[in-house]
């Protein structure tokens, strides 16, 4: 079995690296290069929480979740490329004897950290639930009243929500007051009649509420109430969805982390050594931070084997939660077992196979079965429940604290003023990106768009897009430019943060004529640095490279008196903001390199009406046409 597992590991890592290498304009020919990202159940679950949909191929994550619910965490040691890299690095750094290995593979309490990380991240993604529940009663009332009005139009009598539930609320209110008073009396030591003294207050409270609500529901009619509740909850969720969650799983999701580290750090280094990855060397903004984190996690294996998988990985935690349902697991025969602990020698998951198996920690690597000298361990279908620790060992208080941190992170991050009102001019998102709020709910920072971008313009952001936007893609036009006839980033985005575009839609031609081209920003001149403006020197490289038709940069001929009194004819460049799409090639090609004389900022981007620049472009002309017709 261990040999078969090794073959699968080699296959999975090889496939991952192959997909990574062919994520390139030259080789990308319909290969499912995003498969590993789409297969990460954490991506599927978390984006489903933030977007309330399963985007495109993310159902693969649910397939993996299904496999986990059958076989346990096989993903971690059979398929996960980061897990396999950890396995490899752990073996490389291993200098321990058998006894030390047994000790280092025992379960430790710090391995529960990953569940707290998961809880915090899920809380960030599911923050909308809090306002949705808070606003739910009002929305349910609204839904009921609307339905009642509709029924009234058919001849029934109008009964509003407050009429129907008025009695219930009075009942509940009076019941609460009476019980409260009674509790106060009892606390003061004044008891009423003997029989009353034995009534449990919380039970009575529940009774009052159930009775009150029950009367309301009976008066309103059960089907009407059910439909009003469903409708009202839906409305409440819809109203709370916007601006009420953020997706941070990508920081530690193993697949997103690996793709990001490979893209920004490993591949450029490989290219430096071989000149075989890119045509032109790539540079990435703060790649060393990403690279150091990646290396740090790999080297950590030498001190604690599979440290990332055991203690940090939120995907592993999610799979650990779901593995409780798995039908097969490692089981120990207590009669054959001599308590030699040799099964711990190469236990990858630190799942204590020598005693009751910690099911949520087991990576199903089968090393323990191989290492057991007495054949006391086997992988069995439905073994005794009594011989396992089914769920993760968690501290309820820490879990609550992690959740609270997650809930608080969003307002701290979003309301610190760098995203909405005071958005950064450097946050120029690739074409096809959805509006910033939705973007932060979809982008998993896998940086696959950065990998596929043919010009190096896409860069991992540091804090330009707020702390939420760490490592999300932005365009830095000094590094490259957005190729006019290119939509590769939109094709490889696994979560729809950059939705799939056609060239026609990007350019605003054909059926998209009325909508116009997609703008990522607008270019501006710094006339104090521009050669024809400031220094009487011919240039207009920007005009030459401007790719739109007609060009967004145009020139005006001027005759100027030069320093010596002679006349000089110059072409001076101007921007037509209506034509400019913010591609940034003017900035990239500007000979004033350090602080280019023409530069692009995010204003005027078409993905958000609030960020548009020109009145003429705010109103959708196609909408106007429809209204005229």
């Amino acid at each position, binding site marked *: 079995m261990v040999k078969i597992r090794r073959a699968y590991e080699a296959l999975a890592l090889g496939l991952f690296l192959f997909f990574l290498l062919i994520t*390139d*304009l*030259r080789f990308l020919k319909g290969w499912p290069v995003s498969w590993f990202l789409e297969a990460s159940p954490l991506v599927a679950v978390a984006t489903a929480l933030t977007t309330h949909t399963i985007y495109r191929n993310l159902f693969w994550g649910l397939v993996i979740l299904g496999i986990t619910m059958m076989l346990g965490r096989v993903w971690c040691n059979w398929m996960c490329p980061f897990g396999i890299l950890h396995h490899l690095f752990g073996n490389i750094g291993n200098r321990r004897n058998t006894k030390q290995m047994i000790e280092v593979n025992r379960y430790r309490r710090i391995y529960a950290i990953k569940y707290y990380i998961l809880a915090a991240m899920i809380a960030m993604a599911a923050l909308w639930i809090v306002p949705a529940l808070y606003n739910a009663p009002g929305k349910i009332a609204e839904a009921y009243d609307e339905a009642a009005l509709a029924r009234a139009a058919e001849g029934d009598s109008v009964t509003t929500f407050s009429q129907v539930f008025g009695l219930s609320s009075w009942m509940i209110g009076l019941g609460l007051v009476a019980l409260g008073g009674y509790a106060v009396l009892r606390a003061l030591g004044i008891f009423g009649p003997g029989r009353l003294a034995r009534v449990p207050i919380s039970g009575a409270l529940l009774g009052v509420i159930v009775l009150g609500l029950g009367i309301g529901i009976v008066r309103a009619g059960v089907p009407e109430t059910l439909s009003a509740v469903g409708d009202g909850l839906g409305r409440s969720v819809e109203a709370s969805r916007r601006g009420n969650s953020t997706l941070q799983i990508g920081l530690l999701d193993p697949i997103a982390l690996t793709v990001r580290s490979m893209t920004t750090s490993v591949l450029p280094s490989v290219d430096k050594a071989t*000149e075989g990855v890119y*045509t*032109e*060397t790539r540079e990435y903004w703060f790649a060393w931070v990403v690279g150091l984190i990646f290396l740090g996690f790999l080297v950590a294996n030498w001190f604690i084997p599979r440290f990332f998988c055991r203690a940090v990985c939120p995907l592993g935690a999610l799979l650990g939660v779901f593995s409780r349902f798995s039908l097969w697991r490692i089981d120990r025969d207590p009669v054959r077992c001599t308590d030699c602990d040799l099964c711990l020698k190469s236990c990858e998951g630190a799942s204590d196979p020598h005693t009751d198996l910690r099911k949520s920690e087991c990576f199903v690597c089968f090393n323990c079965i191989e290492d057991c000298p007495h054949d006391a361990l086997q992988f069995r279908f439905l073994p005794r429940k009594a011989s396992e620790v089914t769920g993760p060992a968690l501290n309820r208080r820490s879990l609550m604290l992690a959740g609270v941190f997650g809930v608080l992170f969003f307002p701290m991050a979003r309301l610190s003023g760098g995203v909405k009102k005071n958005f950064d001019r450097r946050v120029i998102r690739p074409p096809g990106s959805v509006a910033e709020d939705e973007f932060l709910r979809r982008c998993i920072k896998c940086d696959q768009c950065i990998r596929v971008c*043919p*010009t190096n313009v896409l860069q991992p952001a540091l804090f330009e897009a707020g702390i939420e936007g760490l490592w999300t893609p932005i365009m830095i036009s000094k590094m490259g430019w957005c*190729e*006019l*006839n*290119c939509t590769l980033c939109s094709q490889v985005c696994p979560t729809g943060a950059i939705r799939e575009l056609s060239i026609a839609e990007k350019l605003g031609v054909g059926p998209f004529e009325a909508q116009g081209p997609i703008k990522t920003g607008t270019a501006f001149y710094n006339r104090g640095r521009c*050669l024809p403006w400031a220094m009487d*020197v*011919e*240039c*207009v*490289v920007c*005009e*030459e*490279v*401007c*790719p*739109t*038709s*007609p*060009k967004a940069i145009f*020139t005006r001929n001027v005759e100027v008196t030069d320093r010596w009194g002679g006349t000089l004819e110059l*072409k001076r460049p101007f921007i037509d903001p209506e034509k400019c799409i913010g591609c940034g*090639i003017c900035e990239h*090609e*500007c*000979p004033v*390199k350090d602080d280019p004389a023409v530069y692009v900022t995010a204003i005027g981007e078409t993905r958000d009406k609030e960020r548009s620049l020109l009145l003429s472009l705010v109103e959708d002309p196609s909408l106007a046409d429809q209204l005229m017709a």
Partner: protein
Amino acid sequence: MGEKLTRTQQKNLERLGGVNPAEAPIPRRQFLTQVGVGAAAVGAAAGVGVAITDPWGMKGVEPPPPVRLKDYSVALAPSRPSLVVVRATPPDRSAFDSPDAEYAAREEQALTMVRSAMQEMGGVEQFIQKGDVVVIKPNVAFDKNPDLGATSQPDTVSAVVKLCFAAGARKVIVCDNPINNPESCFFKTRVGDAAQRAGATLMLPKSSYFEPLYVGGETIKDTWSMFYAPFKEATKVIGISPVKDHNLCKATICLKNWYGLLGNPRNQFHQDIHGIISDFAKMMKPTLVIADGRKLLMRNGPTGGSLNDVKQSDAIVVGTDHVAVDSWCVSKLLEKQRHEILYLDKAIDRGLASDWRPQWTREITVT
């Protein structure tokens, strides 16, 4: 060995047979090898040190020796024209079922046109001999559809590649250093595909492929970084250019096409665009240049982007002198004033090339 030994030391001495190996004399051979090798190592280190001594720190900033481009031109028989204009009616788009069929027909026509032009000048073998390594420099500066006229037509490129191989060329290299991303330029202009299908080797610009080239011209007085790797083994060079408008220098044809071989910071050339283009006449002596005047970008150059800017025409101009070819194209195809194009006059004034003359020009029509 006068000092007294402890008991343990005496035991050790007995075990070793009464002789302390630490006090045995060094064998002469070992002495000589050790001292000799040591001295040699010190000498070698000192020698290397002296050899790479750089007291002023100036050797470190010395650029590598510049490369020079060979003269690739060929002499034609005096009776032959040096500039041939071939005209043919463009195939009617509506007559074909599929774009592929149309493309094949156009490729066929381009082959006929270029071949008959070369026939007129004395045959393909005048230019390409057996075993030649030919570098073809198309203009694929932008990642645009070839129909927009901003780049070389893929059918012309594949026709020339086929002609080269038919004449016995050993290898044909197609290369350019585009403004947009190289992969996507060669892909979108379909030049990469056409060249590879015809059997040519595609060479995309990598940073290690650039070397300083000595030009010694008016604007590039000394050297400039150039995409030199393809020219290492080249014996012939053919430029294939579109005929198009350019805002600053007015026209981009064969002479300006060599711009695409230069490396950064080439965007500074706009500060003296006519000077630099006239320098190309000094820098490059091509075997042949081909101006593809079947699609003319009349406005909004050099990028174009709209079919409204493209004028269908019928001519391919083949010549040995890039200035003469440009001069003919400017006045006859682009409908511009010949002397608007300052760089042509500059190149002629500097004695680097000559203008076109009716007596060296022939116009033919093929079907």
